[in-house]
């Protein structure tokens, strides 16, 4: 392990265990980002991030402009919500998100003059993003703008970004890692963004680096995206930003594994990257930071990839947040005959859903449609203790123990085997020959442990 070093970095560019699923990125990676026109209605769930739900500040039948705040996140760990369209608030109804959260959402019917989304995307891909006049923005200002723009992590977890960049004297940040690994199979939205808007990413990286006072800024990319690496290398010329080319392996993009790969540091259990002096942000988040600060535009649109063999024309799209999944799928030609499962996100950590009116949220990185052949439906057999899950777990846990402890309602064994260290990457379930739903069981196990801690 220790023999190989990633050139220029203390880490090895690799981490222990993990898996190599077929990445299937070629389905959508070569198609340029297309801009979707403004839909008739958008639905904005009030909780699109980790943290406290935001409070609606609009009433039904109220007219809203583009970018107007419709929900305010008052708590520290929360994010505001902006209207991606101009129109009239229809109602505040309930929606069920793919992650089975059932929560209120503001629906807005578009009316009147709309902002042209093509203009927003052209701004993003423009080559004139500033690199030199970053120092005119004070770190506090940048953090404040990020807060006001409602920017959250666009990689999937949707952790409010301003919390990461908020000045904190007790935890000094040495390194800002910008996560462009995109280790999930099928998804290619970050890849496209790095290829098409490298300048925006560089500007955003410099801004975020200034906000956290990082000494070093590193953009991390897996080595299966050579074109993105090339574009970023050109864009980062004459800056302090370094590019780390990492081994293609799942879950390379996970926070803890990424820090280990690049910097050789281990984030303790229950700790945050900042405990190791690191801040991590996704490339798409960083690009929206650039837009928020330089163009003063809130987070209203994002790039998603619509991919999988069950979709007629896989594409990468620039869509307004709040558009329904059904419309996005229709735009891509609809699903094929043998489509079996629609997933919000990638196939390893995404959530399956069946309601086509489910809105695209800030954390939706893509839609993957799998066919009957791809989703295996083999009968579960008993665990033969083969240990494949143990050899796949990037956290070095014993997934089978955890899952069986959960199945037989034994939270104390689950705690002894560190159930809370599991971040549900799905490696164990992917390799399990007995087809045991380990991740699902471990999730129920976590609930058991939480219930035990409460009582």
């Amino acid at each position, binding site marked *: 392990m220790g023999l190989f070093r990633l050139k220029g970095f203390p880490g090895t560019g690799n981490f222990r265990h993990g898996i190599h699923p077929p990445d299937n990125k070629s389905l959508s990676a070569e198609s340029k980002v297309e801009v979707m026109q403004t839909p008739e209605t958008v639905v904005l769930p009030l909780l699109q991030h980790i943290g406290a739900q935001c409070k609606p500040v609009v009433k039904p039948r109220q007219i809203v402009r583009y970018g107007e705040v419709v929900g305010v996140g008052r708590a520290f760990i929360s994010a505001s919500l902006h209207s991606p369209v101009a129109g009239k608030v229809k109602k505040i109804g309930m929606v069920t998100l793919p992650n089975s959260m059932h929560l209120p959402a503001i629906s807005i019917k578009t009316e009147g003059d709309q902002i042209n989304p093509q203009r927003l995307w052209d701004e993003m891909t423009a080559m004139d993003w500033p690199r030199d006049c970053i120092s005119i923005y004070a770190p506090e200002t940048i953090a404040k703008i990020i807060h006001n723009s409602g920017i959250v992590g666009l990689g999937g977890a949707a952790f409010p970004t301003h919390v990461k960049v908020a000045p904190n004297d007790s935890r000094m940040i040495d390194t800002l890692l910008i996560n462009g690994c995109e280790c999930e199979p099928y998804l290619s939205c970050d890849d496209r963004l790095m290829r098409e808007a490298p300048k925006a990413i560089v500007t955003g990286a410099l801004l975020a680096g200034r906000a956290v006072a990082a000494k070093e800024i590193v953009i991390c990319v897996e080595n299966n995206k050579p074109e993105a690496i090339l574009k970023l290398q050109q864009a980062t010329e004459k800056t302090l930003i370094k590019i780390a080319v990492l081994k293609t392996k799942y879950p390379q993009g996970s926070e803890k594994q990424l820090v280990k790969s690049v910097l050789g*540091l281990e984030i303790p259990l229950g700790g945050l990257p900042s405990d190791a002096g690191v801040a991590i942000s996704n490339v798409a988040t960083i690009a929206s930071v650039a837009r928020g600060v330089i163009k003063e535009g809130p987070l209203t649109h994002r790039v998603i990839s619509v991919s999988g063999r069950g979709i007629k024309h896989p594409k990468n799209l620039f869509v307004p947040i709040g558009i329904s999944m*059904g419309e996005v799928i229709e735009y891509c030609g609809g699903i094929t005959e043998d489509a*079996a499962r629609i997933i919000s996100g990638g196939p*390893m950590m995404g959530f399956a859903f069946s309601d086509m009116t489910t809105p695209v949220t800030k954390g939706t990185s893509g839609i993957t449609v799998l066919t009957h052949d791809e989703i*295996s439906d083999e009968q579960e057999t008993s665990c033969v203790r083969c240990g494949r899950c143990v*050899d796949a777990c990037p956290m070095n*846990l014993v997934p*089978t123990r955890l899952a069986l402890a959960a199945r037989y309602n034994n939270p104390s064994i689950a705690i002894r085997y560190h159930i809370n260290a599991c971040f549900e990457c799905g490696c164990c379930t992917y390799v399990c020959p007995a*087809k045991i739903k380990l991740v699902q069981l471990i999730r129920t196990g976590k609930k058991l442990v939480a219930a035990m801690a409460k009582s």
Partner: protein
Amino acid sequence: MIRTDLFVSVSPHIKQDVTVAKIMWTVVACLIPPLVLSMFVFGFQILYITLMSVGSCVATEAISEKLLSRPITVKDGSAVITGLLLAYVIPPGVPFWMPIPAAIMAIFVTKVLMGGLGFNIFNPALIGRAFLVATYPVAMTTAWLEPIRDASVFKYAGAGVDAISAATPLYVLKHYGMSAFMEKFGSMSAIYTDFFIGLRPGCIGETSALLLLIGGIFLIWKKYITWHIPISLILSVGVLTWIFGGETLFTGNPLVAVLSGGVMLGAFFMATDYVTSPTQKTGKLIFGAGIGALTVLIRLKGGYPEGICYAILLMNSLTPALDQWFRPKRFSEGAKI
């Protein structure tokens, strides 16, 4: 608009194309070449013994699961493996019916009564052999056959079981010493080649180190088993025999020790049985080394010339403890906030 023609489930939505049945049948495929070689070396009657063993194992599993109204799991191939391995550790000259009581013991008592595949503590095939050694000791320790080197003799070999009786290398070595061993099996280089290819008296499937090695390496390459148990087992047998196996210390012959008896079969196919071996790497290394040490102990000091069967069974009983003691170190376990 809800699409009710879809499926919902939890992540991950893609799975590797590996099932327990696929692994088991691959192991079966890896076990076939030694059987084919043995057929030519010991005669066709070993095929009948093997078929009898596999058939009775599969039948026992199907019937007992039917009687206990459990789902019938013969399709997963584990009963076939048990049947093959059981035949492989029986001498080639035993009567045809011999595997039947062993199969009932192996499948019904050791596996099905314990709860089925995944719940047995001991390796079923080895329990079957241990049962036979206890109940039919004469047949199990004397029914050896001399390998057939001459193609013309081969034609008649199937005719009679009691064609030629022989002694296993380990038996000769244990009771008559090195000089008698050399006298019987020829020069050292001839011994190495013959033993490596499989031309020596021994149990049905254990003789050909070469073919077992090929099968084992294939399984390791497919990542169905890991190298830890076989390597630590073979190394510990070799090293301990080298130290204690000779007349004085450090004069034992490790190669003969590894190539004779059931070390190769045990190392690659018996000790690596998923259910009865530890799941973690440190545990696996200790498990393999423990088997090796016990094997050498039984060979040198015990009453039997070969001890790998009991060594594996003894270490099987330690597997749950090894899993408890050697849990993998959690990622960032040493890191502090």
